[in-house]
């Protein structure tokens, strides 16, 4: 019987002080952390929207600040309120491991993904990204998921674990400007030189274009059996202007094509 040890002494969580008071305090800390995180995020968003072309630089801080607030709240709950020692933490870790095995591994992977997004920064709030099959502006990077608003104004919630399995394409990588492409098609027999001039001038004169030595307007011509594709590539000063720019250039180019007698293809590109 010398090896017998009372169960009460082997339970590592036996010293855990859980009563109505500690639970209330923990809930209170979480509520305060939640409200504080929302307030700081809202305040930074307001500041960012007033910061013009530095909008994205300010928004970068939102997930960072939120992460710090929740980390401090968690530490104060575990260490300050429940007063967990190393033994209790190991035991809690065991319980967590079991929980992961029982089905919250995706949630855990998303949280790890959230940490990777915050610290490695493959994208930031304000960037235009393709995450899996979704494309849009990142409006929020949470610990569990990233929110995108698509060009159709639909909010998509993508779990952060997507960054481990899918490729991430970032159109602006933290910069306010981004490359936008207006794609037009003309008949193979059309006056290509004139068409290229029209597309270039439409891009150069657009209200949305950003022009500098590092941000030139370029026009690319691609030949095809049924039509010729002319792509006008230019930077927009604000990534939110991507679609207004392409729409503006396309609209004015088509009008100029018609005025100049530039032949359009007989078949739509997807019919050819």
């Amino acid at each position, binding site marked *: 019987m010398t090896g017998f040890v009372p169960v009460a002494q082997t339970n590592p969580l036996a010293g855990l002080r859980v009563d109505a008071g500690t639970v209330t305090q923990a809930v209170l800390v979480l509520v305060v952390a939640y409200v504080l995180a929302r307030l700081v995020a809202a305040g930074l968003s*307001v500041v960012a*929207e*007033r910061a*013009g*072309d530095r909008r994205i630089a300010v928004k970068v801080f939102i997930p960072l600040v939120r992460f710090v607030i929740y980390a401090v709240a968690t530490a104060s709950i575990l260490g300050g309120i429940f007063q967990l020692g190393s033994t209790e933490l190991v035991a809690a870790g065991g319980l967590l491991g079991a929980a992961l095995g029982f089905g919250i591994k995706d949630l855990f992977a998303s949280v790890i993904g959230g940490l990777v997004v915050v610290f490695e920064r493959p994208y930031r709030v304000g960037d235009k990204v393709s995450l899996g099959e979704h494309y849009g502006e990142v409006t929020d990077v949470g610990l569990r998921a990233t929110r995108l608003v698509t060009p159709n104004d639909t909010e998509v919630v993508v779990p952060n674990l997507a960054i481990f399995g899918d490729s991430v394409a970032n159109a602006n990588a933290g910069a306010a*400007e981004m490359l936008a492409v207006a794609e037009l098609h003309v008949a193979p027999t059309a006056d290509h030189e004139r068409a290229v001039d*029209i597309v270039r*001038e*439409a891009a*150069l*004169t657009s*209200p*949305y*274009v*950003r*022009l*500098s*030595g590092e941000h*030139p*307007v370029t026009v690319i011509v691609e030949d095809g059996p049924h039509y010729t594709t002319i792509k006008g590539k230019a930077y927009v*000063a*604000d990534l939110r*202007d991507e679609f*207004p720019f392409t729409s503006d250039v396309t609209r*004015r*180019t088509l*009008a*100029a094509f018609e005025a100049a007698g530039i032949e359009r293809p007989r078949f739509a590109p997807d019919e050819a």
Partner: protein
Amino acid sequence: MDADTASGTRADRPGDELWDALAAAGDPLEPAVDEAVELAVAGDPVAVVGAPFGGRGRVLERVADRLDATHERLMPGAGLPALDGPAVLADVHHSYQRTVGGFDTLETLFERCARADGPTVTGWNQHAWSYLLHARDIDEAFEAVAVPAVGREVMGALVRHWSPSVTFRAPPEEARGLLGTDRRVYSIPGLGEREIPVPVVDTDALDHRDAEEDPEAAVIRRLTTLSDGNPGVAWALWDDCVADGDHAAVDPTALQTPVERTSERARDRERAQRERGTAGAGTPSGADDAGLDRPTAFCCRLVLAAERLPREVVAESVGDADRLLGRLERRGYVTTTDTAVALRPAAVPDAVALTDGRRIP
């Protein structure tokens, strides 16, 4: 069309008296005149590039006198004059439009300047020039000469010339605090719109702190900074400031652009509406430049780069031009008539800040 005549704003623009006073105050335009003449005589087509109302016209007049050249101004939509013999052509930024096909006249100008058989000097708005640098490599076609800005010393001499009897005073005590509060309206979920005091850092207060010791220097410094050393803009700002009878004694805070004055009035009105309970009808704020969308800012850039334009030219470059011009006029950037729009000289700093801030070329 002569946009000058149509706009009816010539009286609002700096006239000969300003440039004569500038010549008497050390003649800071002289180096630009010398350099333009030197380059033109050497056979290079010359571009005199200057800020709106900054003295470009006076430089060109003097260059024309020195070269004994014909001196013409290009009008929006008008054809190019022949460049026979020594020629000075002002306002050449009207040779292009921001439309598809809007560069044809400019391309013709390039060809004529390259073939001109005498010295050719052209005058360009600097904002149009910087756009054309990237859009058309215009620096390949002309040798550029910049119209210089003036320093505080010259600005002081101009102010004393304009208002010999004016007195200077330190700004009021409340204008010297670096940290102040501004009451702004924010939409709060669940509570609707609420006015919240927001701490703001007033960097101008740093300038005001030593104004007590030398108010005149502080006023001149503020005028030079606000106008970016542009004598025409400074003249308009000063004129606005002393035109009000309350400003016989001037302090630095009395120097305000038209847009700042309009914004202040709009904020006061909105505050009064909230107090009376008549706010909330959904009228957009008139006090906030952030409320101006990009097409409106682009419209402002068109006028900034041309100084004066017929409405029809603006309408060819941007949709819904009348509405956009109305918004700019209400905020103090431009003045309009039925046929034309003109940039307000005192609003040049605002127009530059609005359009550069949005990186509109």
